[in-house]
């Protein structure tokens, strides 16, 4: 038998909560066998299919791109679809899975993300164009593309948001996910809404509420850096008017190059 098909035993501790029956959450243990290639999501599927069909969790793509399956494993937020089970087992072959912290639990591992999306919409995450879009594509510089790449690969899984201590203590905090998206649009040379964006995030509910705890960086499964984006937004919010002027000039440049 090759190494990747060798079966071993593991215990998966899962936080359960059914609001219709339970007064408070509790842990339930499930025994299962796994191989080298078993992911945490595979383990959850195994439990749901063969041991307890009432276990509830979100998942969709299984390729770490939809962001549905973010959960808290052994105290760390991550996507369970691309996390091997054996890498997260303790010495006693136990792994503990909880729902994302600081968010209301709907059932078992499913959390209510309403606040997460409300805060996301606050920063207007879409591109605000000047209204005279050319038929050809804009030509932006490689440096600008590289800067945008540091934020563009966010999959909105909520791992950073629910890892943020400030989110847990301050209800109206915009959150690292939305601030990262705001950073993306503010720096995008095609976007003309930088001023209103900086006014929205440059408040005590936005970038000035961040306590630089870095949990968002540690939690991000895509290795993004929301803290650095927040620092950049802080600096730009202070010199908003000058930045706005510089951006207008830059937009004119890329606009002229298209024609």
């Amino acid at each position, binding site marked *: 038998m090759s190494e990747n098909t060798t079966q071993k035993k593991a215990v998966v501790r899962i936080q359960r909560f059914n609001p219709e029956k339970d007064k408070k959450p509790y842990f339930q243990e499930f025994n299962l066998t796994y191989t080298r290639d078993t992911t945490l999501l595979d383990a959850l599927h195994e439990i749901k299919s063969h041991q307890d069909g009432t276990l509830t969790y979100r998942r969709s793509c299984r390729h770490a791109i939809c962001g549905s399956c973010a959960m808290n494993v052994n105290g760390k937020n991550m996507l369970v679809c691309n996390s091997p089970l054996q890498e997260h087992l303790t010495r006693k072959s136990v792994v503990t899975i909880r729902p994302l912290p600081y968010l209301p639990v709907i059932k078992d591992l499913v959390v209510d993300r309403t606040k997460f999306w409300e805060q996301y919409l606050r920063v207007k995450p879409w591109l605000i164009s000047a209204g005279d879009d050319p038929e050809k594509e804009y030509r932006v510089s490689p440096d600008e593309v590289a800067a945008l790449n540091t934020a563009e690969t966010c999959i909105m899984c909520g791992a950073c948001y629910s890892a943020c201590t400030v989110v847990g203590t301050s209800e109206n905090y915009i959150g690292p996910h939305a601030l990262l998206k705001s950073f993306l649009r503010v720096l995008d040379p095609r976007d003309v809404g930088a001023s209103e964006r900086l006014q929205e995030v440059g408040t005590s509910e936005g970038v000035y509420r961040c306590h630089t705890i870095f949990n968002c960086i540690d939690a991000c499964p895509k290795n993004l850096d929301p*803290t650095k984006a927040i620092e950049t937004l802080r600096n730009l919010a202070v010199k908003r008017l000058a930045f706005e002027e510089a951006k207008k000039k830059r937009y004119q440049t890329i606009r002229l190059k298209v024609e």
Partner: protein
Amino acid sequence: MYKTTGFLSFALRRFTGVALVMYLLLHIWVIGSSLDSPEAFNERLNFLQSDLFKVLEIALLAAVIYHAFDGVRLLLVNWFKITEKRKNLFYSVMVISALLVIAGGVPILLFMLEGK
């Protein structure tokens, strides 16, 4: 609660910040008595000469040093945007703080023991 080195540094920063405010109140209570009379000032100062307050002085030193260096760490991260160095900087702050607390705390302890 999401526990990381970042959370630990934040919790310590908050705790030492509140402790320093508490110290400031005590400090004002003692210094303020000098406006009443020399006797009142001496009485309150004598109250603070106990061994307990000598040990608390070391704790005060630790709080001041950690709070100051952690603030410098955040300034460095903010200014130079070196978030990838966050853990190294945190461990550096802990080591520097520990060394300075030992350097400052040992003389306080020796002074306390000499007085006996």
